[in-house]
């Protein structure tokens, strides 16, 4: 008898414990009203945004102000949760596992979500004028199976950064136009001694695909051609061979396969590295430090032909949840007003995603000219293919291996991964 009583008490406590646990977990996700309205399909008055943290100073401030305006203008409430980049993959995955997806999620990928049928396309939630205003490149890469799902929040374009002081010391007059010149310059800078690094080459797991993209685009290569994976194309093997050559000649920093982008930037910021692929936030840091006299130029191409730039955009995707369509549409309507979107992008030091934005930035932000000119023709990684979401991870984990092994074998393996669907 006693034991049954005991188990009743225990069971009761367990339930209480679970209830407590449920409230504590998910940082507010449990209270998001999206779920409660779900069963009845009635209109949702509060939506939740999970935003990536681009900077400590600006991201949260912007979204808080945005939520205030949103409430005033539309009457809907916007719950904002800002998550660091280190955590956001994990958080978003957990939310979706637990059926607690936010209404809007800010992330660097969208195609897998579209493939899983979780997202609204532009016909449902994006006003037509806004779609027309978004740069064609981004519409192209945001389109999965004929529908536009990946709405860009901001963009960046890479450019070639060089240390003018080191160039002068090494007797180099102008930034390289071809890879041969780059190699030459890197040798000269390394020869200065004192641990100077010619070219800072980050092929570590943080963003190996970004660095490699910049190089392969400027050798006429690509990740996919005509809809087929082309990771191990001759051009790409040639590109990776060249990177290995740079590493073998020791004109890069030590151990490029294990150097993350942030570390490469640190080398450039400290005046140790002569050249690096950077983007506007790096320029902002350099301007703040005022330590390095640097120049920004188009990235040299292998044969000296016109430089191509690697562009990146992140996405604000809208999750299909019963009754949230109107509120979500109102969100995009407000976000893409020039006041909002351009303010955000400017504060974070990135580049615009709309045609109107490019115009405004071109007039007012002379420092960004190098990037803005290249932006409309920027090439992106194949973010419109869900397979890429896995290939990207495979590239991050394996590309560096080519520095101690065979570039061809490395790329063959990646090609195989891609053809097998990740």
């Amino acid at each position, binding site marked *: 008898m*006693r034991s049954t*009583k*005991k188990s009743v*008490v*225990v069971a009761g*406590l*367990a339930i*209480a*414990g*679970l209830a*407590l*646990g449920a409230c504590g977990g998910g940082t507010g996700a449990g209270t998001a009203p999206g779920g409660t309205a779900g069963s009845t399909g009635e209109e949702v008055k509060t939506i939740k945004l999970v935003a990536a943290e681009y900077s400590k100073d600006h991201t949260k401030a912007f979204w808080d102000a945005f939520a205030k305006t949103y409430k005033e203008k539309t009457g809907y409430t916007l719950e904002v949760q800002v998550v660091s980049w280190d955590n956001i*993959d*994990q958080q*978003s*995955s*957990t*939310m*979706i*596992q637990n059926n607690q997806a936010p209404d809007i999620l800010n992330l660097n990928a969208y195609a*897998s*979500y579209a*493939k*899983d049928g*979780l997202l609204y396309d532009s016909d449902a939630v994006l006003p037509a004028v806004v779609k027309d205003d978004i740069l064609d490149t981004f519409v192209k890469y945001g389109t999965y199976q004929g529908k536009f799902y990946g709405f860009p929040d901001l963009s960046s374009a890479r450019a070639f950064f060089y240390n003018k002081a080191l160039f002068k010391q090494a007797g180099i007059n102008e930034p390289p136009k071809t890879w041969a010149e780059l190699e030459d310059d890197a040798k000269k800078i390394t020869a200065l001694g004192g*641990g100077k690094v010619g070219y800072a080459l980050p092929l*570590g*797991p*943080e963003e*190996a695909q970004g660095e490699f993209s910049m190089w392969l685009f400027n050798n006429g290569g690509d990740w996919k051609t005509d809809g087929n994976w082309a990771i191990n194309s001759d051009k790409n093997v040639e590109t990776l061979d060249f990177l290995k050559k740079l590493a073998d000649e020791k004109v890069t*920093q*030590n*151990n490029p*396969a*294990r*150097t*993350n982008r942030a*570390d490469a930037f640190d*080398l450039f910021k*400290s005046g*140790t590295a002569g050249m690096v692929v950077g983007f506007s936030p790096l320029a902002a840091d350099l301007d703040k430090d005022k330590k390095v006299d640097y120049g920004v130029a188009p990235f040299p191409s292998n044969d000296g032909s016109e430089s191509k730039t690697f562009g990146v955009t992140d996405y604000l995707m809208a999750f299909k949840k019963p009754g949230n369509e109107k509120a979500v549409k109102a969100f995009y309507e407000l976000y893409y007003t020039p006041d909002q979107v351009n303010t955000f992008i400017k504060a974070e030091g990135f580049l615009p995603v709309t045609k109107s934005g490019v115009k405004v930035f071109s007039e007012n932000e002379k420092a960004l000219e190098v990037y803005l000119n290249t932006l409309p023709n920027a090439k992106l990684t194949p973010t419109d293919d*869900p397979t890429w*979401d*896995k*290939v990207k*991870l*495979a590239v*991050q*984990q*394996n*590309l*560096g*291996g080519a520095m101690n092994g065979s570039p061809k074998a490395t790329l063959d393996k990646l090609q195989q*991964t891609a053809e097998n669907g*990740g």
Partner: protein
Amino acid sequence: MTDSTTVAPGPATTAGPGDRRSRMPSRTARRHRSGRIGRVHPLIALLWLAPALALILGVVLYPAIKLFDASRGEYSITGLRKGDAGWDNYAKVLDHPDLGTVLRNTVVWVVAVVAITIVLSLALAQFLVKSFPGRRFVRWAVIIPWAASLVITSQLFVLLYDYNYGIINHVLMSLHVIGTPIDFLGDDSWTMFSMVVVGVFVSLPFTIFVFIAGLGAIPDDVMEAATVDGASPWQRYWNITLPLMRPALMIATVLNVIYVFNSFPIIYTLNDRNPGYLHDTTITFMYKLAFKSQEKDVGMSAAAGIFNVLLILVVVGIYLKIINWREETSR
């Protein structure tokens, strides 16, 4: 281990080794006595246990059930559950080409960190029970690595180890021990060593204090008797101190094995520049499977998690068997 509660630096430092002996037995004796007098009704006992039970059920059992559930599901890269996978996830984990490397790393990591920690702690604890000027300060200093968050400590070591700016390389080069910097975190032959150093560093405080408590519990009269009988210091240590330290050694080993096995931040932080699984243990392997690797599969990661739990249970079980748990706890 009732003694461990009395190890707070306060009383230990104010009292010399002599009068601690007179103090401790009286405390434990009092406890034993009160235990014998009061017998509590099981329901009242349950009432007292309730918060702990609720916590165990809510924080341990419920997630464990969820984990098992997840390990049997098929998940999309987005985290969406697409259906049931049966035992596929388990098979995929066992089939993983890097599993051997990961298991070997785990063994090296746990054995190296725990063994080095225990040996160093025995020596340091021996030193810290002696009275010397400034002992209070030293004992506090020993706690610091424990008080700091593991992520912060690990990040600190990343800076110390750095190839270009790290102070360790700087010192070694200035002393002409090495000609070119060592890539502590990027060179495969150094990475595990560098991580073990940090693992030992953060495990030392807890272990030292367990041993200080253990040493404090050794009655001085036994030692005196041995000295009178002409035992050398080494004989005294080997035949009296160490056997009497067995409970403390056991606690320290078991808890350290569990902590070190489960240690995530050190390996994750120090190894984050290295691609693949070359230096991962089963814990970081599990994390990478879910969020970083090309698999990016929650179900597979959950299956790896189940293996982790089983693995640690087996290890602890074997250890307890060896050390003869029953005999020791009945003391």
